[in-house]
Every structure is written in structure tokens, then in C-alpha cells.
């Protein structure tokens, strides 16, 4: 067991204990409804979407992620101005999710961008990196929503 994975297991155990002792509502940091839009094999990038619910009593910051199915993963935000011009930019400072709050990663909004994807059907594992909490591993199904 590497030090970081031991840390992760400890964090998992701790959050499991918290979840068991608390009444009502999650007291953990959770990621749900994860999916990635199906793109053709020639695509140089794809997007990963999900919802983060921060049931902890402190803020966390999403700072990025990693996956064996992507050369790299970046945290991006698509914004649209009054003239309907779409622009996509990295969120250099990460995305802060306050205690008790949730954040939606969705099309035409915030997303994790998978650069040079290598998996185009089925699903792939992604580690979402946080500041202020342990990283979370998710399995992302590739869908055409």
C-alpha cells in the first residue's frame, strides 16, 4: 500500500464512519450521475459530466482529475456571452463547493475535459482530484444523452 492510497483508505473509512453515525442526509463528499458524451474515434477531446454533493462541513475544491483513458484531464468552464459566443476556459483556481452545497457539471457548463481519449464505448475510470478532501474514483459510462 502506497502512502497516498493508505491515506485514501483512511479517508474512506473515516467518511464511512461519519455516514453511519449521522442521521439524515449524506455527510460525505459524493459524485453522482456521472457520464461522458460519446464522440468519434477521431475526436481529440471529450467531456465528463457529473454532480458533486458536498455533505462535509467544510468547503472542498475540485482541482482536476486523471484517467488512463485520457492523455490528461483538465477542469474547464464553457461560458456564453450576450452575443451567444461560446468560450471554453480552464478553471485555474479550481471549483469551490461549499459545505452543504452541490455543483453540477453539465453540457455547455463546467466539465472535466478528457484530452486525447482512448476509450470510445463502454466506460472508463476517472479519479477526480480535490483540495480539502480525498480524491474520488468514479466509473464514467459513455452515453449519447
Amino acid at each position: 500500500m502506497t502512502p497516498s492510497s493508505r491515506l485514501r483508505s483512511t479517508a474512506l473509512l473515516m467518511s464511512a464512519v461519519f455516514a453511519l453515525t449521522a442521521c439524515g442526509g449524506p455527510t460525505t463528499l459524493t459524485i453522482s450521475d456521472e457520464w461522458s458524451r460519446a464522440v468519434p474515434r477521431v475526436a481529440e477531446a471529450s467531456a465528463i459530466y457529473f454532480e458533486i454533493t458536498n455533505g462535509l462541513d467544510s468547503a472542498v475544491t475540485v482541482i482536476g482529475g486523471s484517467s488512463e483513458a485520457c492523455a490528461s484531464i483538465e477542469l474547464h468552464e464553457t461560458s456564453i456571452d450576450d452575443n451567444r459566443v461560446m468560450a471554453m476556459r480552464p478553471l485555474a483556481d479550481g471549483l469551490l463547493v461549499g459545505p452543504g452545497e452541490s455543483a453540477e457539471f453539465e453540457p455547455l457548463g463546467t466539465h472535466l475535459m478528457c484530452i486525447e481519449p482512448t476509450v470510445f464505448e463502454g466506460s472508463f475510470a476517472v479519479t477526480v482530484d480535490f483540495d480539502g478532501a480525498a480524491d474520488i474514483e468514479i466509473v464514467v459510462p459513455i452515453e449519447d444523452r
Partner: protein
Amino acid sequence: MRRKGLISIILGVVILALAGWFVVLPQLRPHAFHGVIMQSPTAAPEIDLQATTGELIGLNSFAGKLVVVYFGYTHCPDVCPTTLSTLNKALDQMGDGSNDVQVVMVTVDPERDSVELLDEYLGFFNETFIGLTGPTADIRRVATTYGIFFDAAEGDAESGYTVDHTATLAVIDQEGHLRLVFPPELTADEIAADLAYLR
């Protein structure tokens, strides 16, 4: 006996009224467009670019069809695949009616989007989608006439650059008039309803 007759008359009236409300009225009401309708439809500006189908293409290549024009690029991970997937679902919903619709995507990234790449990329979403490209100056000229802005924005080394671009869709009718503009957030249902009405 008389009472029974009265009840059937009342019942008949109620049924007729309901039928009128749900069947006749919606057909009398004008179609409420989800896209932004052009009040006085003008001739759509010419699009003379290189097509993924091989030849140089002009709008008259699609005469008799509704043409949906989108400006996008294949290195775009979020907006463009979302829009192309939505358009495919809209055409799907239209069934045979989709034969009267031609979707074209003009690349705003001709440096990286070759004809082959565009063709393969678009074909994944729908085999009927046609990609258009050409020299940057030509694309910019066409885009400007459609009120479309685009500009490359520097990314970091890993992801390369991205292209800011107006993400609206223009709809050109069978007579070559610019009729409708779809904002990027419309759903497949909304797009299908508008296209089915114009068809």
C-alpha cells in the same frame, strides 16, 4: 326517459367541446417558434466552401431542403458534440421528414479540421451531416455574413488552442431565405417542432 335524453345531449356537448379544445384549437393557433424567427426573411448569404462530399458547395446544392447551418470545430469537446447530438436527435424525431433537412457544419478551425477529419467526425453523429471548409479568409467572410464571430483562444500546451465561436444555428428555408435562428441551448424536441413546421 326525458331525463336520459337530456343527459345524453349534455354529454354530447361536453365531448364536442373537449374535442374542439384539444384537437381543433391547437391546429388553429399559429405555431409558436422556439427559435428566433426572422420578421422579414431575407435571402440567405451564399456559402461557397469545400464540402466533405468532395465538391465545392453553394446553397443552391440544397435547393428544396431546409438547411441548418452550424459553425463549429472538431477539437471542441463540449458545445459542438452536444449540438451535433441534439441535431441528430431532432432529425430522428422527425422520421421521414428529416429527408427534407440538410445539416451543414462550417468549421471555424480550418487549420486542424481537414475534409477527412470533418467527414469522419460528423458522420459519427449523423451520416447525412455535411462539413464545409476552405481558406480561413473565405470562412471568415461567410461567417460574418451570418453574424457569426470566431477567434482562436490560447490554451496551454496540452490541450492546444480552443476557438471561441457564436454557437447559434441558422435555418434557411426551401426558397433560400434565412428564416430562423436557434440558440445553442434548445432541446431536440424544440428544434424538431420548428423544423417540422417549416418543412
